[in-house]
């Protein structure tokens, strides 16, 4: 088996894995009950899917200019996707978006005593 065939097989496998992760993330986005669960599904699965496809680009374009910018894209996705999800969930909580299945945020007055430090957000 020559080297080019191995490279093609690796790229194909990474594309299949990435597409599967994108599909799973979108099913989570459509089916889960509230915004926090949807973010939990998408921010991880979509990041892994796009990173896997970036990795396929890195393997396909060799370690030259375009391949290295694919690696930069992976690092950028892994830095920014959790930051964006954190910003959205923080603003959702400040807007007062409720949980879908009736759960509550842990209230600060319920656990009385030693709750002085819990007030600082």
């Amino acid at each position, binding site marked *: 088996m020559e080297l080019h065939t191995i490279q093609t097989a690796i790229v194909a496998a990474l594309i299949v894995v990435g597409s599967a992760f994108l599909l799973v993330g*979108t099913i989570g986005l459509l089916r889960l009950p509230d915004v926090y669960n949807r973010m939990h599904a998408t921010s991880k699965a979509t990041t892994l899917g796009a990173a896997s496809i970036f990795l*396929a680009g890195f393997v396909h374009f060799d370690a030259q200019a375009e391949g290295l910018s694919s690696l930069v894209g992976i690092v950028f996705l892994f830095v920014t996707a959790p930051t964006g999800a954190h910003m959205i969930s923080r603003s959702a909580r400040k807007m007062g978006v409720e949980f879908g299945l009736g759960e509550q945020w842990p209230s600060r007055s319920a656990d009385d005593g030693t709750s002085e430090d819990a007030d600082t957000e």
Partner: protein
Amino acid sequence: MTVASETSVLFDWIVTGGLLVSAFVTLLSAYRVIRGPTVPDRVVALDVISTNVVAIAVLFAIQSDKGALVEVGLVLAIIGFISTVAVARYVIEGDIIE
């Protein structure tokens, strides 16, 4: 038909299938943008769409064998992140840059 050409035909099918799956998934995410009960739902769905478009750009770079299109995906990822943060600030504070 040699082994190499068969492999290349299969590879083209796999890349096209990946493009189709990514495009279909992006179309499905639009349901959550239109329907989503609250504003953060729509922001999450738009974030997913921008990440999917990045994946589509890289897949198209692989399919057409033009490496410069990877940079398009990189720029789209940056724009998606900035717009997500901007909207997330806008919905709670009313302005983005004070």
